[in-house]
Structure formats: structure tokens, C-alpha cells
């Protein structure tokens, strides 16, 4: 029989990816008594979920759910967390794998208290990738206000040559510019792959004008524009002039369900746009919102949310995919060409802000070979004790990813049990 790991020296589970899915898998396994190595390539945990303004359908901030998970992680001695860490190799046989992890230097040690003295003196700036480049941070920065681990990180590529201002400013001696990349190896019984997703590159949909006109944003960047800790302190404004938009157009299936781009349905964008339409209206009750769609896909518990938002005044649904977006000459407005199918009429709508509902692309870079990938690039399975969870497996929302993470943890636990029994 299996006994809690605290009393035995069995091998840990490797969790690849520290987003909501990987955090869940790591916690579930650790709270069941197993040791876990959680690796995350960015400097913080929480992944894309951490950058969202609100969840659908409850319209509550992800901060609170993530915060609970972070508390559980902090309390749990069985989870070893490596940020800025990427998997280099994963070799071995079922129940017994060698994982080689490359940890990039953070240049800030655990002595950091996040006092901000370093950033105050730092002379260099970098585009804030957490805020989709809409704002800048210093070269030494905290990824975001409640980032975990709560430690600064230095983007050496952004540093001025030979500058040591932060080193001198830090009274805790937490800055170490001499840090080198490290290689760590772990013997693990199983691995959970939760490498997540990235938004589809909207500039590849060249008829929709993204990248050409400033007032066309994606659904992912809108989350940052709406977030209170975002570049505009939560005030949703047009990038061109900082004014709140009066007419907003949502373009559904911007890349998804399109054989020229992503042939599959990304499954979350309809609900995400409804959520965004809803909080846009809450912020500006006079906003006129139009959502152009092929089909609205909000099944199950989301249907109630659909019915609620549809009834809101000021939100108009038009069946018909947008085929063209052009800038209106002499203004920053946009002209959206579509066919209103139910009326059988081709129309040109005008908007001050266009939100492209871009889809989900599985993030599989940096994974060792040997995973089976489906026709769309999602990981469909593997030989051995590897468990796939979250958006790298299929496009899904946070709730489903969390369930997926729990399921993967159960599979990984069974692998650990098997390895104990056989070894």
C-alpha cells in the first residue's frame, strides 16, 4: 500500500508549466502527499490567468482564486518551485525519468523584499510584456503587483552597459549581476505537461488590419486595458488618443474556425467577448457594442450568461463574419465590412475600438520530442507516465483547465504508486 511521501523517499512528480493548470496539478499531488517539482519559464506563477481582468461567467477577478492557490502552495513544503526554468531533457523509463532543467538567472536573490529601491534608480526601460507592451517597466522590475514569487527580476538585455545602480541601491544585497544559468537534474516518477497556450498572432489575419491601425486590439490585450493594475489603471481607452470608445466592435473567430489560420474552434472566445462586452458596458453605460459572429458557442452553464448579456441594452449581435477592416480616412475610427446574414445585407459598421477575438494556440515549444500531436498541434498523448492537461491539450476555459489539472494529478499519483510498488 502507498504511504504518504513524507515517510518515504519516493520520486517526485515533475509539473511543466506554472499556470492555473500546472499550479492545480502540483497542489493536488502535493496535498495528496507526493513531492512535486514545478517548473515555470516566466519569472512568476499564474500564467495567462494572472493577466486576466475578470473570469466569465461570474465576472469575478482571477486574483482571488489564484491567491488561494498561492497560499496553499506557500504552505506546502512538498512543492519545489523553479521559475525562469525550462525543461531541457526528459529521458528514462516509466516510473523513472531523468529531467534536466535549465534555470535562467533572475539576478535577484531570495533576499529581495520588493522594496522597489532598485527600480527607482534603474536608468533603463523595457516594454512591459505583461501589459502587452502598452506600458514600460524599468530593466529591474516586479512582473506585476502581486506576482509570486514576490521578487524583482532583471531583464539584462534592457540594462545599460556596465550599469550597477541597482546593485548599489539594494541594501539587502539581493542583486547579483554575476548569476549564471544553472542546470538541475531531477529523478521523477511522472510528469504533468501543462505548458498552456498563446494567443493566435492577429497580424497574420491581414484583412483585419491588426498592427496597421492602433485602435484594433485583441481580446487578450483588452483584459490588460481593463485590469485595475493594467497600463491604464483599468480605464478602457483607445490606444490612439486615450479616449474611451463609444462604439466597440467585437470580431469573433478572428483566426479560429478558419482553415487559413486555426481550423478549430477555440471554444472560449464567445464567452470571453460576452464578458468583455459586459464589463465595457459596466464601465461606460453609453457604449454601443456590436458583436459579429458566425455562431455563438456558449454551451452548458454559459448559456445562462449568454441569455443575460443578450438582454442588456446596447449590445447588438450580428450574424456574419467580418471580412475586412479599414481605417476611416482622417480619423482613428475603423470601418468594418460584413454581411448581416439574417437581413441579407452587406453593411459597413464604424467603430472607435475593434476587439479581435483571437484564438488559442497550444504552446509546445521547449517540450522534449515524443509527444503525440494532433492535426492542430495540440498534444494528444504520449507513451509512459506523462499526463497532459490544460490548453496544451485542447482549447478550454479556466474551470475546465483546473479540472484537467486535477485529473492529471490523479494519473501522476497513480504512476508514483506504480513506481513505488515495482521499485
Amino acid at each position, binding site marked *: 500500500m502507498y504511504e504518504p511521501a513524507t515517510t518515504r523517499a519516493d520520486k517526485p512528480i515533475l509539473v511543466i508549466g506554472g499556470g492555473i493548470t500546472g499550479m492545480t496539478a502540483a497542489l493536488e499531488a502535493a496535498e495528496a502527499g507526493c513531492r512535486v517539482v514545478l517548473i515555470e519559464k516566466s519569472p512568476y506563477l499564474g500564467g495567462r490567468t494572472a493577466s486576466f481582468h475578470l473570469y466569465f461567467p461570474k465576472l469575478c477577478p482571477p486574483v482571488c482564486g489564484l491567491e488561494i492557490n498561492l497560499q496553499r502552495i506557500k504552505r506546502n513544503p512538498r512543492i519545489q518551485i523553479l521559475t525562469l526554468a525550462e525543461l531541457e531533457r526528459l529521458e528514462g523509463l516509466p516510473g523513472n525519468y531523468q529531467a534536466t532543467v535549465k534555470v535562467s538567472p533572475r539576478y535577484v536573490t531570495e533576499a529581495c523584499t520588493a522594496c522597489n529601491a532598485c527600480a527607482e534608480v534603474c536608468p533603463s526601460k523595457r516594454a512591459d510584456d505583461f501589459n502587452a507592451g502598452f506600458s514600460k517597466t524599468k530593466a529591474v522590475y516586479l512582473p506585476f503587483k502581486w506576482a509570486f514569487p514576490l521578487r524583482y527580476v532583471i531583464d539584462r538585455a534592457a540594462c545599460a552597459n556596465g550599469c550597477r545602480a541597482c546593485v548599489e541601491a539594494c541594501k539587502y544585497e539581493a542583486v547579483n549581476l554575476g548569476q549564471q544559468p544553472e542546470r538541475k537534474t531531477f529523478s521523477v516518477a511522472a510528469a504533468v505537461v501543462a505548458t498552456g497556450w498563446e494567443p493566435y498572432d492577429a497580424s497574420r489575419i491581414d*484583412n483585419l488590419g491588426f498592427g496597421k491601425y492602433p485602435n484594433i486590439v485583441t481580446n487578450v490585450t483588452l483584459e490588460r486595458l481593463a485590469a485595475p493594475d493594467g497600463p491604464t489603471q483599468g480605464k478602457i481607452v483607445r490606444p490612439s488618443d486615450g479616449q474611451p470608445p463609444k462604439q466597440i466592435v467585437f470580431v469573433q*473567430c478572428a483566426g479560429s474556425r478558419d482553415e*487559413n489560420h486555426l481550423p478549430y474552434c477555440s471554444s472560449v472566445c464567445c464567452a470571453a467577448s460576452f464578458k468583455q462586452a459586459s464589463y465595457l458596458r459596466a464601465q461606460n453605460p453609453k457604449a454601443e457594442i456590436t458583436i459579429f459572429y458566425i455562431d455563438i458557442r456558449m454551451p452548458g452553464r454559459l448559456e445562462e450568461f449568454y441569455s443575460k448579456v443578450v438582454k442588456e441594452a446596447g449590445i447588438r449581435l450580428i450574424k*456574419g*463574419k*467580418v471580412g475586412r477592416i479599414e481605417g476611416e480616412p482622417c480619423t482613428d475610427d475603423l470601418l468594418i465590412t460584413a*454581411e448581416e446574414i439574417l437581413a441579407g445585407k452587406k453593411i459597413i459598421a464604424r467603430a472607435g475600438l475593434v476587439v479581435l477575438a483571437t484564438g488559442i494556440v497550444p504552446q509546445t515549444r521547449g517540450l522534449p520530442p515524443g509527444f503525440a500531436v494532433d492535426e492542430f498541434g495540440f498534444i494528444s498523448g504520449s507513451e509512459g507516465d506523462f499526463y497532459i492537461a490544460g490548453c496544451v491539450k485542447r482549447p478550454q476555459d479556466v474551470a475546465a483547465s483546473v479540472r484537467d489539472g486535477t485529473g492529471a494529478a490523479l494519473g501522476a499519483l497513480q504512476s508514483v504508486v506504480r513506481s513505488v510498488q515495482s521499485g
Partner: protein
Amino acid sequence: MAEPLLVNPDRQFIQDVLRNGAEDVKKCYQCATCTSACPLSTEEYGFPRKQMLLAQWGLKDQLLEDPSPWLCFYCGDCSKRCPRKANPGETMMALRRYLTSQYDWTGLSRLMYRSAFWELGILAVVAGVIVALFTLPHNFGFGLLDRSGPAALSTVMLDRFAPVGIVDWGDKILALLLGFLLLSNAARMFLKLTRGRNIPAHLYINEFHRLVVQGLTQKRWNACASNETVKNWLRHVFLVSGYATMFILVVLFLPWFQVENSSIHWTSFLGYYATAVLLATTAWILFDRIRKNTEMHRFSHFSDWLFPILLFLAAFTGILLHILRVLNQPMPTYVIYVVHLAIVVPMLVVEVPFGKWGHLLYRPLAIYVAAVRSKARELAAQTEGVAVASEAVASS
């Protein structure tokens, strides 16, 4: 919301359109990217999304009353953008093929579009008739040549082989017959497009210039936004100028065009122009169809090959005939004369009333009727507006 619609699918129509090049039409999920991407489709004439639906559901009657397939010039933007790769551009082309076969009342066009064997068979029969005309009678063609003595065998004497008077009558009769067939088909199209619509007669006159201008210049094509548009349009205008020149030379000026001796005549220069243009444009078009490098040329139906091939061969044998005559090669000249006619006549018989060539009339006619219908609708809306306004005045 629209009224409930009882769909009565014409399955033969669906089958015919699928076979005519719309084989991907059922992949369409009606998202309307095509219509919004199309630079020619308008609020009033939105296409090709609606036409995709007509083809999917077999709504033949609605299709026959819709000028839209002819308002499309196939820039291919719709197919390029189509998220389902359902090829709306080629579907519009397939619908034009289908409509051509529907306008024809003899039923021959339908047979030819359904089967390449029928098309080749009819071409062969007409070619056979031409060859027979030159070989069987004793007072025309090779029969006449036998009776003309040795002089016509040492020098080219076309009058001793194919007397220009007889040929001239022949081509005028052919032109009248084919013209009648084409016009009767166009009349059927016109009735389908206008019947049951309240269109004041003066609009037909006011808008008539469109028929002429579009027929001569295909100007509407230029509103397509695709990069290939200007190239394709110019090439087409040249092609049209080539065969129009040739048509005029042959039908109206044959006594000046088919000359006896080896001299170069004024008609020769017009002939050179037409030949050069026809050879170059048809070869170029065939080259594009082989390379499949543009949306418009990616898919080639049998009829798309046949037309430029025949036109190329007609021009080629025509100039060969001219060269042989100028070089004074009697027997080769006579033989090529027959070969030339055995290509040109079947080509015209098959293409003008039954085949792809019909679009030279159908397209401008559709543009014309579409404009007339628009104006009629505008007028109706105005009168309604006036009626509403006067009612308002009366009641106040």
C-alpha cells in the same frame, strides 16, 4: 426575421453545379466572409454567400432571377479568404456555367456542360459537315478544283476552290443563325431577370448605355481589388478587340479579306493585329491555367480549356493559311483553308449560343438589368416616401 421559407430543392441543379466546378460548395458554413471580402458585392447585390446557399439548397428558381453570378469577375478574394476552403469564386463560375446551360432552350448546352463527350461529339459533327462540304459537292471545294484545270494547282486561286461569294453567304447565314440562337437565349435570361418586377419602361432606356459600355470595355472588372485584376482585364480587352476585328473582317468584309493573289491587302494589317492579339492572349491564358497561379485559374473546367484552345488553333490556322497563300503554295493553302474552317465553324457553333462565349452578352445584360432593377427599387422607395409624406400632410 424573414418569413418561413419552404425549400423545394432541385437536386438535379445541385448535381449539375457540383459537377460544373462547385464541388466544395457543401463545405460552406455560411459565415459571409466571402461577401464582405468581395469588392464588387454591394448592399443590394450581396454575393457570393447567398449564391453558395442557393447552390447548397438547390434553389434553382431564385438563382435564375439573380443577376449576381454575372456581376462577379472572379478576382478570387472570396476563395482566398474563405475559412472553409469552399471556393466561392469557383462556385460563382460553376453557376455561370450552369446558367449558360439553362438559358439555352435547345437543351444542347445542358448536354455539353454535363459531358465533355457531347461537347467534343458536336464539335466533331460540325467539323465533319465542313469537311464534307469541301469534299462531296462537285461544284465547291476540291470538286470545283478538279474541274478548274491545272492553273489552280500551280498558283493559289481561292476563287476556284472556295468562291468568296458562296463563302460570304455561308458566313452571313451562320452569323444570323448563331446570332438568333444567342439572342433568344439572352431574351430568356432577360425575362427571368425582369418578370414580375414593377419596372417603368423609361428605366430600360436610361440605363441602356451600360449594356453597350460594359459589353465593349468590361469596365466593371476594374472595380475588383485583386492585384491580378488590371492584368487580367487588359488581357481580356485585347482579346475582345482581336476577335471583334476578326468577326467584322469575316462577316462584313469577306470579299476584301479573302483575296486571291499573293499581295498584301489593307485588310491584312487588321488581320495581323487580330491574329497577334488572339495568339498571344489565348496562349497566355492557357499558360496561366496550366500554372494555376491565380485564384481565377486554379480550377479549369473542360469548357475553360476548350475555348482558348479552339481560339488559339483558329488564329494559328488562319495565319498559316495567309502565309501559305502569300508563299503561293496552292494545295497546302486549300487544305489549311478547310482545316481552318473545320476549327472556326464548330468553335462558333458550339461556343456562341451554347458555351462560354455567351458571356459576352450575358454579362453586360446582367449588369444592365441589375442597374435597371436598382433604379426601379429606388423609384418605388421614393414614391412610397412621397405617399407616406402626403398621407402625413393629409392627416395633420
